[in-house]
């Protein structure tokens, strides 16, 4: 499920075992993800599952599709 409608929230899941800190997602989702001092994505207050506001959904989908390590997934909760 990737489409979030109504009150449902979509979260971006980071698979840390795949992530290599290439930095693509931190550029596409600059308002949501920062990168830590080693280049790995970091969202303040969130760990492996980052809530994505509706306005950033397209950028989040793009991040999932373009991640060179296939480390991202979108989940509707």
């Amino acid at each position, binding site marked *: 499920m990737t489409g979030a409608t109504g009150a449902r929230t979509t979260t971006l899941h*980071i*698979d*840390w*075992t795949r*992530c*290599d*800190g290439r930095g693509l997602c931190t550029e596409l989702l600059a308002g949501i993800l920062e990168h*830590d*001092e*080693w*280049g*790995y994505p*970091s969202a303040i207050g*969130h*760990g*492996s599952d980052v809530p994505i506001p509706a306005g950033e959904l397209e950028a989040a989908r793009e991040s999932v599709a373009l991640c060179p390590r296939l480390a991202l997934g979108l989940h509707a909760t």
Partner: protein
Amino acid sequence: MTLCGDVPQPGVVEVAGGARLSDALGRSGLDAASVRAVLVGGYHGAWLPASDLATPLTRDALRPFGAAPGAGVLMVLGARRCGIRQASIIASYLAAQSARQCGPCLNGLPAMASTLARVAAMDRSPALVDRLRRLAELVSGRGSCHHPDGTARFVFSALTAFADDVDAHRHGFCREATR
């Protein structure tokens, strides 16, 4: 429970559910006056200072300390020991135990361990403790297992329980060195 560290007789003792920490320690013939702090719940647990030895070993009673009975391991730190030195040794061990699969743990735990080692070695740089706290926050929740979370919990707990050691080290003293 498993008793280890500065105890007369390390080993496994039988303790009734909900017993106080002091009761469990008494099983090994330990004099409460010789205790500085107890690490409850193993290396991923939290330190209870000697003033709180009457705490029951239950989830509810241990929660305020950020501790839990966990695997039932109690590690005693003797009254004359430096908590920060001991914590530094344990943090280095935990950093070496990373499965090295997730970036934040692979990079963050050795960074935490080396920063704590500098505090333990009486490096007086004022920013060390802030960096340690920032690193512990940074690795928390960012891994496929909870090894970084447990290690961060241990480090936070050590900074709280042994704040006086941190302060002493910053001024060039260590309780172990000034015996």
